[in-house]
């Protein structure tokens, strides 16, 4: 798979092209060009380090939204086994923006739900670009209840620009579908681990995000509003989205400092889209660790800790 470079990756791509070219020419003249190759390779390493270690919030958002980024079902396929997808909310339909089902994590049975984006236009029509309708949230809580019933820890993979703001979604009470999950997830007697794998778009993300552990991939983001939306309100122009991304404090590091997320899952150099298998393995290792930690905690303590985790979020004076 050829990776589509992002704007800020241009210096890296240039060096990679130079390197490829000089290697082509070097066939037959290895000794003379060896030092040139080494020089470019060194420069490439340095450039990669400096570009990827100093990513701005806006650059990370580009990575989080990269069309070749691993999506929910990629993680299911590469981190979990024996996935059985289960369909439908039992009332209206099946929301393909929110797949879910049974799976195993090594030998541990789990219930997995999450937002799924489409890889191309055709799939995106089915998946609604990862924006779920009420049916998606209602299917998700139905599956999560089975997690409680069958003693299978819940893994929720979050990747949505937001819940869908459509006419049908409003008529079928998208707000209540989210609110209901917020309340009911607080009471599920089974460990819940939420991972923001790409975009954590506001209420649509939180609608499957009430968990004992909230994890985030290194380049993912989680926000009350899209940077574009914030820029439109604050600066009356969406082109200030990079400034808004900064102000909103939505990167993994910011969220970790604020106590919103419990752990940042490292991504392969340059972002998860460069190496799906590597990213999936990284996620698997961290999730597995948290599952086994949480399974040792008695249910009443688990639920009390989950309540307190959200109870304690917020800053104010006059306490």
């Amino acid at each position, binding site marked *: 798979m050829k990776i589509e470079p992002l704007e800020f990756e241009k210096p890296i791509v240039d060096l990679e092209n130079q390197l490829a070219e000089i290697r082509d020419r070097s066939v037959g003249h290895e000794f003379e060009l060896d030092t040139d190759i080494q020089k470019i390779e060194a420069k490439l390493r340095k450039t990669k380090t400096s570009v990827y270690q100093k990513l701005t919030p806006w650059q990370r958002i580009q990575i989080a939204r990269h069309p070749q980024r691993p999506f929910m079902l990629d993680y299911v396929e590469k981190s979990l086994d024996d996935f059985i997808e289960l369909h439908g909310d039992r009332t209206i339909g099946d929301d393909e923006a929110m797949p879910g089902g049974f799976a195993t994590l090594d030998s541990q049975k789990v219930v997995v739900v999450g937002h799924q984006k489409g890889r191309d236009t055709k799939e995106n029509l089915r998946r609604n670009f990862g924006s779920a309708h009420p049916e998606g949230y209602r299917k998700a809580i139905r599956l999560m209840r089975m997690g409680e019933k069958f003693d299978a820890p819940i893994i929720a993979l979050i990747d949505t620009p937001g*819940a*869908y*703001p*459509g*006419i049908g*979604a*409003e*008529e*079928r*009470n*998208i*707000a*209540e579908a*989210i*609110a*209901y999950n*917020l*309340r*009911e997830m*607080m*009471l599920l007697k089974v460990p819940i681990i939420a991972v923001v794998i790409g975009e954590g778009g*506001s*209420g649509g993300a*939180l*609608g499957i*995000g*009430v968990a004992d552990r909230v994890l985030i991939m290194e380049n993912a983001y*989680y*926000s*009350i*509003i899209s940077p574009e939306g*914030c820029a439109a*309100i*604050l600066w009356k122009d969406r082109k200030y989205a990079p400034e808004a991304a900064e*102000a*909103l*404090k*939505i990167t993994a590091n910011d*969220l970790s400092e*604020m106590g*919103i997320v419990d752990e940042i899952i490292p991504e392969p150099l340059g972002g998860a889209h460069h190496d799906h298998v590597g990213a999936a393995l990284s996620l698997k290792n961290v999730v597995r660790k948290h599952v086994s930690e949480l399974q040792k905690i008695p249910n009443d303590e688990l639920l009390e800790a*989950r*309540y307190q985790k*959200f*109870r304690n*979020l*917020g*800053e*104010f*004076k*006059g*306490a």
Partner: protein
Amino acid sequence: MNRKMVVSRGFVGNFGVHETEKHDVMGIFKKPSIKSLGKKKRDMPEGLWHKCPSCGAIIHEADLQQRFRVCSKCEHHFTLTSHERIELLIDPGTFKETEGHLESVNPLGFKSYTDKVKNYQQKTGLKEAVLTGKGSICGAPITIAVMDFRFLGGSMGSVVGEKVTRAIELATAENRGVVVLSASGGARMHEGILSLMQMGKTSGALARHSEAKLPFISVLTHPTTGGVTASFATLGDVIIAEPKCMIGFAGPRVVKETTHQNLPPGFQSAEFMLEHGLVDLIVHRSDMREKLGQLFNFMLPKNAGSAAA
């Protein structure tokens, strides 16, 4: 305990006449005497007229005050302040404000947020966008949270989330019902992700309140949208809307821009919500107190109001 409706008052808020006569129906509106007008900040000079935004009728301030700020021509419900709501709903002498000291900080160091809060505090005389407390409604012991749209669009940041949560937790501890009157543009952008987390926090508190078999009534007033709709406002055991108020997850403009479709008539109005099965009742402001009293008195346990064991 006498849970019968005790006193109904002509609605005056803390800005005008205070009627103390006993009568049984709130729909009886007494004309306030002119001399009792003109004390506090909402007081208008004699002869002040309002234009109804719905039907265009010209209404005198005194008439509006008598009718709970409802248009006498078309029943349009004008916006109420949080104090006016308390005055309207809570049994006289029973209201005790809680957590009135909580104030916002600027956790993200967000551009001009601190000044914004200060300006709204000065403009409204409120500390934040929600007023909470305990008291009784027709004798039923409750805690109440009233959002005030005048304060930064009734948006929910850390303070609003904390105050609503504490009101719910207090109700759980003291075996009380909860009533929340919502009026909100949604979660408060200026506090970023912390505002989003207030949705989880308030909904979690409601989970525990509900497990204790205590009733929660959500009253939706104009307008209720966004993160407030997607958390406590839609979690009522009973959900009541004021006539014609706008209720939704996304605002109508966003829905229109996203879908490129024409919105159906009455989309996101209280009547639309009732028709689609999303709210239980539409209740006129003049009947609200009595209706809440009836519902709470039905739903509350016998030992309501005594601290939980």
